């Protein structure tokens, strides 16, 4: 093998300019692939992190995933019925604190009760729809990042005045209200109450900051017109990627619909998957183009080395040895190009990561770049495979050449 490698290296080093061009082709492909993967993955992870931080990992609501079965369906197997009305049930989760205690028994993370309601905010003669969440400030920090997202006050300020409210900063800006202003909260059933803005929240996700409002649980219950109402249990898990499985277990245990952050953002995650497919297709295409350069070089060397191939075979080199020589040449170019490409990719990522960037949708100040050895391994693996294939074809052709035909032609 050392002999084969020596001959391969000698061939490659004898053509410095050609080899450098081939290496640069692979390096560019690998470098830009690493950069692109880091950028795409970084933006995706940054977005998901903000989304996950802004919301509980799992929300258990007072709903059933499937409509309740009528008793008649249970008694008569294949009966058709009409005119039956679904029985009216009192909204809210039954025995919420018992459920919370049970969940705290096996769940590694944290659990907090809350009240979710639709509300209309009236201020300065304008009505704006909002999502109102009644929270317990003492436990909210366990299930969300809300305490860190408060601007101009603190979460505990909800205790300072009766009917205190925290608005999303974009929502406040939209209605033109500031901290200290009094707004009117109206429920769907027409109940209203006046509330004072004690702070603003800023999650960094525009969709949330434009619609979200927070009050104490008690205030939300008053607005909903139901004392003791808890219609959502917010759960934070230790492993966010396991949220879907934990949600399924909670749902099986409680019977209430448990929605993980993945399920809540299914469409977004699907879009990311499609984006990843596109990204890796483009990355593959870049590396494929780079491999044509390698193919070209190895083909040229093979062509130039026809006589050497003949003499090596006449000396007793086997087809396999000859094939390995030219395959190794491609891999040498591919490997050197890959290492250069890794360095180039890292430098490009660093450079891009230092560029200041402002998005209207997320709260980033620089382009988010994700660094992982996986990007380098994928780009390197694809580049080496492409180089190997690019080298294999001319190498096979070289190995199959008949020495007699070459020697006759050369003599």
């Amino acid at each position, binding site marked *: 093998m050392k002999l084969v490698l020596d*001959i391969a290296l000698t061939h490659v080093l004898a053509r410095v300019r050609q080899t450098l061009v081939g290496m640069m082709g692979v390096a560019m492909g690998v470098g830009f692939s690493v950069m692109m993967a880091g950028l795409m993955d970084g933006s995706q992870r940054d977005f998901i992190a903000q989304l996950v931080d802004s919301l509980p990992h799992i929300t258990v609501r007072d709903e059933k995933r499937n409509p309740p079965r009528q008793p008649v369906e249970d008694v008569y197997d294949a009966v058709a019925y009409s005119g039956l009305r679904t029985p009216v049930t009192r909204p809210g989760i039954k025995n919420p604190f018992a459920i919370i205690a049970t969940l705290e028994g096996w769940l590694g993370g944290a659990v907090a009760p809350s009240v979710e309601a639709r509300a209309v905010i009236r201020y300065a003669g304008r009505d704006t729809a909002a999502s109102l969440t009644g929270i317990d400030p003492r436990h909210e920090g366990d299930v969300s990042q809300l305490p860190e997202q408060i601007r101009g006050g603190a979460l505990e300020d909800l205790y300072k005045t009766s009917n205190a409210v925290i608005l999303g900063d974009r929502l406040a800006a939209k209605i033109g209200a500031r901290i200290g202003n009094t707004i009117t909260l109206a429920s769907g059933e027409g109940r209203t109450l006046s509330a004072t803005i004690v702070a603003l929240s800023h999650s960094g996700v525009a969709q949330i900051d434009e619609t979200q409002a927070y009050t104490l649980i008690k205030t939300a219950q008053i607005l909903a017109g139901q004392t003791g109402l808890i219609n959502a249990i917010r759960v934070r898990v230790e492993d966010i990627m396991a949220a879907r499985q934990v949600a399924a277990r909670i749902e099986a245990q409680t019977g209430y619909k448990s929605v993980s952050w993945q399920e809540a953002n299914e469409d977004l995650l699907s879009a990311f998957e499609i984006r990843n497919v596109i990204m890796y297709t483009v990355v593959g295409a870049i590396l494929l183009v780079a491999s044509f350069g390698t193919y070209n070089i190895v083909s040229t060397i093979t062509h130039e080395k026809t*006589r050497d191939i003949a*003499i090596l075979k006449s*000396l*007793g080199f086997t*087809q396999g040895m000859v094939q390995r020589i030219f395959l190794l040449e491609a891999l040498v170019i591919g490997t050197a190009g890959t290492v250069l490409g890794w360095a180039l990719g890292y430098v490009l990522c660093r450079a891009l990561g230092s560029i200041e960037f402002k998005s209207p949708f997320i709260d980033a100040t620089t382009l988010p770049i994700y660094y992982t050895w996986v990007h380098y391994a994928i780009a390197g693996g694809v580049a080496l495979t492409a180089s190997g294939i690019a080298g294999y074809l001319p190498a096979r052709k070289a190995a199959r050449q008949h020495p007699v035909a070459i*020697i006759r032609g050369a*003599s």
Partner: protein
Amino acid sequence: MAMPETGSKGKRRPVGPAIIELAHVTRQVGDGVVTTLVDDINLAIRGGEFAAITGPSGSGKSSLLYLLGLLDVPTEGEVFVEGRAANALSETERARIRLELIGFVFQFHFLLPEFTALANVTLPMRALGRLDDKQMRRRGLDLLASLGLESQAGKRPHQMSGGERQRVAIARALANDPRVLLADEPTGNLDTHSSEQVLKIFRRLVDETGRAIVMVTHDMGLAARTDRRIHLVDGRLVDVD
């Protein structure tokens, strides 16, 4: 297995058992129009034999040499190497026999241009893998010295004269101490002085080491200085003396 040689006049030095033997060997090429390169040849090459293959252009001299060296496979007949039928051997097995038993020298030196003379000479030794680096270097230098090339060991082919390059090619052919050296017009590109040197080397190798040398040549003067002349016409062996 020992076949009566076509056209033999029976005058030949007794040189032991055959190293390579051709039995009714024919080589044809072409799919539509078939050309016969060598036709029904019976020939045995024994140790210590210095033979010349002669004949007009296109008579099949080189083709016969390539068949002897297992670089080509006969269309009909059988090639035996040290008594072993070679036709059915795999390409890898044939390559191994070439590496161990047969050395080739061509009209053009065919040295690898990026390698020094010493690196070219040690190439077959490295492929065989029987010696360590130190032993290979020692043997390579000894071979070059025996051919008067001790000062050329570190030079690349383009830094040497035609005669020197051809002598390096001979050293390379001798690297694995082959039993047979096959030379295809080895002096074809050389001046008279260099040709004379090559011929002296060949003679010395035969007389001192007992190797067999088979040399294809146009030059009847050179052929006359060998022990045995194998004359081909139209692929057929017409005369052996």
